[in-house]
Each structure stands twice: as C-alpha cells, then as structure tokens.
C-alpha cells in the first residue's frame, strides 16, 4: 500500500511477535487482580449495608421451656429500650437455615444445642447504649450477649483492605514488568533497525517521526494482546462466578461484577496499551539522542 506502511519493517522483529502474548498475560493478571479487588470491595459494602442498624442478641442454649422464658423476659426489655425500632426472636428453623452453609442441612434438631437469637433493629443515628443494654440483659438472663457485628465487620474490612493492597501491588508489579519488558523489546528493535533509523534521521526525520513508527506498531500489538487478555479475564471471572455460586452464597463473596465494574475491567487493556506506547516513546526518544 503506497505510503501507508511503516518505513521500518518493525513487524518482522522476532521479539515483537511475542508482544501481544506478553500484553495478554499482563492484562490477564492485572484484570484478575482488579476483578478480585472489586468483588471483595462490593462484598464488604454489602455486608456493611446488611448489618448496619442491626444487633443480634444471643441467648445461651437451653431446653424449650427455659428458652421461652428467657425470650419472654428479654423481648419486652428490648422493645422498651430507647433507640430500638424492633426486636424479633428467630425460630429454631431460621437459626438452622443461617448455619446451613457451614454445617449443612438438618442441624436444627434438639441434638445440637443452638443459642436462641433475637434480631434487633436499632436506629443508626441515635441508637441504644449497647453497653448498658448488655448489662441489663445479662442480669435478666445470665449469659446473654450482644453482638453488634462491628468486631467481625472490622476484621473483614481489614482483611479486604489487605487484599486490596496486595492486588494493587500485583497490578503495579505487573505494570513495572511490562515497562521493563517493553524497554528491552524496543531497544532490540532500535538495534535491529539502526541503519534504517539513521537513514530516516539523515533525511531530516525528527525524533517524533521515528518514535511514531514504533508507537503505531506498539498500539496495534498492544490492542491485540489487550483483547486476548481481556477475553481470558472475562472467561475466568464468569467461570469463577459460577463456581462461587455453586459452593454457596454465604461462604464466598459473589463475583458478579456490575456494568461499571466490567467497564473498569475493560479499561485495563487500554491502560496497559497506553503504558506500552508511553514506554516505547520514551525509550525511542532517549535512544535517538545518541544521533547527532
């Protein structure tokens, strides 16, 4: 094709043939890290929203009569406490359902002593004094404890943040690996095409003209690799989502990404391609400075 092809035969470089696969791997690793990070962040948000404004009262296990008496004592106290919106005792079947993901079906019989649970809805702005309430309840029914979920939620948030930091570190390391590899591939290309580059330079080509040749090649290869990497990421995320669903909704965070999260994931190949192009440009420009 007249004039539209690259002046330098960059597409014949053996090292550049590997570039789409390299970019695909980088996009895949970065994409998976990002998907994991986003799904965990979503899970934490869901847990936080689900537990906000709720407190669980655990009544020590006992026989039906004892438990029934305990409920009769505790529920009026709770319902008359300022800041409490509602208090509802969970039946044995409901408690067993909550434990199903961990213990399996059929654990609700009398053979396993389960605590009785009271689900309490509290105001989020001016809630009850939980410390005082705990004292009152434990006096009424010894052994009663209040779980406001904050402790477990804080642990989850800390864990999620640690995972997030690891994921960010992986993405940064992967990007760094990409930069280093692209520098080497570009330098190899510069060495292979030294004569051609020098010829263009002697004809009056500015550094940017030569750099654009490398960048155009890098753009094509980067987008090709990015598409492969994104495709593999999407397949993996969908597969893991199905597998997580099969294991059980309560045990693993769901890996169902929202449209916005998919768009963020689609930005990974574009971001990596941009890194590839910028690295290529900087490498070429700095190398061309050796020419007079």
């Amino acid at each position, binding site marked *: 094709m007249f*004039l539209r092809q690259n*002046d330098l035969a960059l597409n*014949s470089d053996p090292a550049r043939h590997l570039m789409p696969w390299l970019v695909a791997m980088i996009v895949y690793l970065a994409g998976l890290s990002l998907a994991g990070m986003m799904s965990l962040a979503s899970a934490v948000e869901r847990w936080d929203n689900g537990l906000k404004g709720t407190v669980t009262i655990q009544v020590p296990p006992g026989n039906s009569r004892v438990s029934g008496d305990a409920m009769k004592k505790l529920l009026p106290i709770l319902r008359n406490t300022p800041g409490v919106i509602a208090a509802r005792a969970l039946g044995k079947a409901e408690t067993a359902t909550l434990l199903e993901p961990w213990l399996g079906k059929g654990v609700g019989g009398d053979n396993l002593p389960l605590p009785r649970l009271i689900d309490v809805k509290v105001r989020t702005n001016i809630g009850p004094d939980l410390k005082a309430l705990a004292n009152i309840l434990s006096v009424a029914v010894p052994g009663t404890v209040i779980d406001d979920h904050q402790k477990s939620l804080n642990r989850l948030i800390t864990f999620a943040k640690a995972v997030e930091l690891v994921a960010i570190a992986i993405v940064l390391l992967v990007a760094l690996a990409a930069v280093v590899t692209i520098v080497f591939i570009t330098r190899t290309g510069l060495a292979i095409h030294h004569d051609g580059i020098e010829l263009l330079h002697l*004809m*009056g080509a500015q550094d940017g003209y030569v750099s654009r040749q490398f960048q155009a090649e890098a753009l094509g290869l980067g987008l090709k690799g990015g598409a492969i990497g994104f495709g593999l990421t999407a397949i993996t995320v969908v597969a893991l989502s199905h597998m997580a669903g099969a294991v059980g909704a309560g045990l693993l965070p769901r890996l169902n990404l929202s449209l916005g999260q998919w768009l963020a994931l689609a930005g990974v190949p574009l971001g990596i391609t941009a890194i590839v192009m910028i690295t290529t440009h900087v490498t070429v420009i700095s190398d061309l400075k050796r020419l007079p």
Partner: protein
Amino acid sequence: MIRFQNVGMRYGLGSEVLRNVNFDLQLGSFHFLSGISGAGKSSLLKLIYLAHKPSHGQITMFDRDVTLANRRELAVMRRKIGVVFQDFRLFDHLSVIDNVALPLKIKGEDWDRIKIHAAELLGWVGLRDCIDASPLTLSGGQKQRVAIARAVISRPEILLADEPTGNVDDSIALRLLRLFGELNRLGTTILIATHNENLMERFDHPRLHLADGELSGPFLGSSQHTEST
C-alpha cells in the same frame, strides 16, 4: 554556501581522520571530491550531510554555524541535503516508489502530490516500469537510480554522492554523471566523492583532493577530453 574553517574530525577517541580542513563551496557549484580509499572522503561527506560532528573547527551551511544548531534546526537542514550513498541504503520491504517518496513523506507533504511527483521522477531516471517493484529485484544500476531519485525528490539545495559509480559499469556511470549535471543546471550544488580518475577527467569540474585526512584544492579540471555536462 558551505564553508569549512579549520575543521577536524575523529571517530570516538581515535586519531583524527580529517585535519584542518578549509574550503568554500559556492551555491550552484559542481565539485568532485577525490582521494584514494581511506583518505577521508566519506568522513568529509558525513560532516556535510550532518551525520557526524566535527571534533574542532567551524562548519557553516545555509548561513548557520551547524555546531550551534539545535536538533530541530539540524533536521530542517538535512531536508535540504540529498545524499546518494555508496551502498544505496534502500528499504527492501518498501516498493521502489515508497523508497523514493520517503523524503517528502518525512516533510509531511500531501500524499497524492507525493505519489505523482515520485512517479514522474522515476520516469526521469528511466524506472517507470519498476514503480511497484521491490529493490531486491533490481540490478545495481537500477538501485543506484532509485537512490538518486530519492536524493533529489525534495529538490535539495545540496546533493552529495559517495562513490556513485562504484557499483555500475562505465556507460551507466556516464549516464549518472549527466543526470547530476542536469540537476546542477537547475541550481543544485553538487559534490561527488569518487576515486574514478577516468570519470573526473571526462567532466570539467573542479576537484577537492583528500590525502591522509588533509584537503587540497579546489583544482580546476584539467582533462584534454572534458565533456560538457
């Protein structure tokens, strides 16, 4: 137009390959640069086509001290200089017309105009039938003419040729020299490096002579059998 004042040149930390070179080439002149192999002809041409910096001295071209010019200015100057390399230096993966068109493409000229101009020029050097051929399929003489077409397509003010007749037989060499003569008549300053005494004697152009890195001349052509170009 081209002025060398006390110019020296060395490669890296080696000894000087050119020493205290002084000369003036006037606008529109035609000179031969003679000397045996290794005398420094190619090195002198490299200084003129701005591929190398002098180790000392001053080079003035296009009314500018080139040692003081920045990269952008040097690039603009290079576009005014056409070079025919001894080994042609064509891009084998590009067609003949794409090779010839390169200098205009670098200048950023309109593609349609470049295409028409390159085709005309290839006709002028007798290669109209080879427009879409690969340089790999051309003979030495044909490659030489492609290299010349590429060197002159942007109407350079200076045309340099390094041993342009080294790879072709005498009849083609004469034809090439006549081509250069035509360009010179259009106002292009021409400097041809050669060690072909027969050729220099046939054409009545002044000669710069290099020996062991030192320049003498210009001497006027003194052949009994000079040929008008």
